[in-house]
């Protein structure tokens, strides 16, 4: 499916979705509240995005979020952007979905029931970024120890002992 056709389908389902086309693939921003329904629609309806090949998160602390994000983040709390990369094994088109979360209280619905691979990936993001996935079947730490404090992949994380800085 071409970029235009994908945009048309998405706009019809979710009129307030924002697009960004500078990169290699079509990026779409959706709100956290619309995510659950949108995810199920992506997987099962017209676009048939059955393969979630990358799920990650990017941290934008307040100063970076206000300076570099478009539109600039004025909440003052900073952002955590969830990034989902999808491909359809039927049509071979690729879509990137991004969801901006409040950095002080990051919460989003899980999609591990729609794409099973999300279960582990979401646990990883929970562990390293502190994003809480609602209704996740088994939201526990994945790689770090149970008593670890802080979220290492956030930009403001400092480890007094093991940090590599050049």
């Amino acid at each position, binding site marked *: 499916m071409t970029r235009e056709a994908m945009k048309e389908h998405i706009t019809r389902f979710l009129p307030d979705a924002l697009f960004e086309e*500078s*990169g*290699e*693939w079509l990026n779409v921003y959706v709100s956290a509240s619309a995510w659950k329904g949108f995810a199920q629609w992506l997987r099962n309806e017209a676009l048939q995005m*059955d*393969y*979630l*090949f*990358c799920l*990650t998160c*990017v*941290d934008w602390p307040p100063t*970076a979020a206000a300076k*570099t994000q478009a539109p600039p983040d004025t909440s003052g709390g900073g952002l955590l952007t969830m*990034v989902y*990369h999808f491909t359809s*094994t039927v049509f*071979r088109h690729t879509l990137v979905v991004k969801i901006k979360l409040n950095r002080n209280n990051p919460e989003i619905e899980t999609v591990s029931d729609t*794409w*099973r*691979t999300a*279960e*582990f*990936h979401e646990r*990883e993001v929970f562990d*390293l970024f502190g994003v809480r996935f609602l209704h996740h079947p088994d939201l526990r730490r*994945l*790689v*770090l*120890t149970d008593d670890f404090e802080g979220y*290492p*992949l956030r930009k403001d*994380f400092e480890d007094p002992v093991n940090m*590599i*800085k*050049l």
Partner: protein
Amino acid sequence: MYRETQIIETDNIAAAGADAAGAALVINVGPQHPATHGVLHLVITLEGETIKKIEPHLGYIHRSIEKMCESLSYRQFIYVTSRMDYLSAHINNHACALCIEKGLQLEIPGRAQVIRVLMDELTRIASHELWWGAMAMDLGAFTPFFYAFRERESINDIMEETCGARLTMNYMVPGGVMYDLHPNFQKRVKSFIQLFNSKIDEYDDLVTGNIIFQNRTKGVGVLSREDAISFGCTGPVGRASGVTCDIRKLYPYEVYDKVDFDEIIETAGDSYARYQVRLKELRQSVRIIEQLIDNIPEGDFQAKTKAVLKLPKGEFYSRVETARGEMGVYIVSEGGTTPYRIKFRSPGFSNLSALDHMSRGSKIGDLMAIMGTLDLVIPDIDR
């Protein structure tokens, strides 16, 4: 063999996933277990001999490579990635180099492209060989390990000569490869291919046709096509379930669109299918090398690049096919000399997540036959 065992109290049985009537036994396999090939810890809930649930516990070799890369420059961070999937070091480096070249919109010389593909395929052969030996050893056949390592040694020697290292080569750099090929390279690769072609049938005689081996792997750990896609399984694991997922075919990079090779697809989805996919891939890799080894173009082995690389603001993603499946590198750049955020999508991570689903209902004795064919490399999963 197992580190410790414990019988769960009756009130915890429901939580552990077993029925209230049967006694559930929880055993720990790993983190120091000879068949997990690394520090992987599996907590297995059993009912009798039947597996009810497997929980992988990760992190014993977590080094937070992604965080480390945020403070390393675009030339430096490639060195760290050799330490993720150390059996596919070349291909990891390749993925990173491709991603940076995408950001810089850099065209790399034809000679470098061919060298990269040759190295990738040699790595793939070496990696599959190690898997083949180790997998047979997990199932109790010790001889294949020596056979596999005999041939793998020649590849390591070739790598040592050209790249200066045997495992963590760091040979691919943004813009091409680090040094030109060693003058002996072509000769040694050709003699290796000749040797390997005569040995590869021996592998089939030794293991594939063995009736005990077939009984232990056929119909074991079945993964359906839909589940393989949903779990994000790629590489031989995905292809054994009938998923077309070879990045070399779907999104060709370097000269993969100019060489002739088949994507191996099996449909059974069991351990035997995964075994067969890998063995057949060995022959395809040989085919690719045979086509390229006499056609290495003359010219530069590295494009001209600046000493300090700066990626423009934006996001870049590159995908390559490692020996284990699809490897992705996702770079978010703010225009500086270091990545703002980097994410490695490692194939082993997704393949491991399907282990619980594949093994439920199997006997504990089949676990190694299932896990062996996933070809897990733990540093690649923990990162």
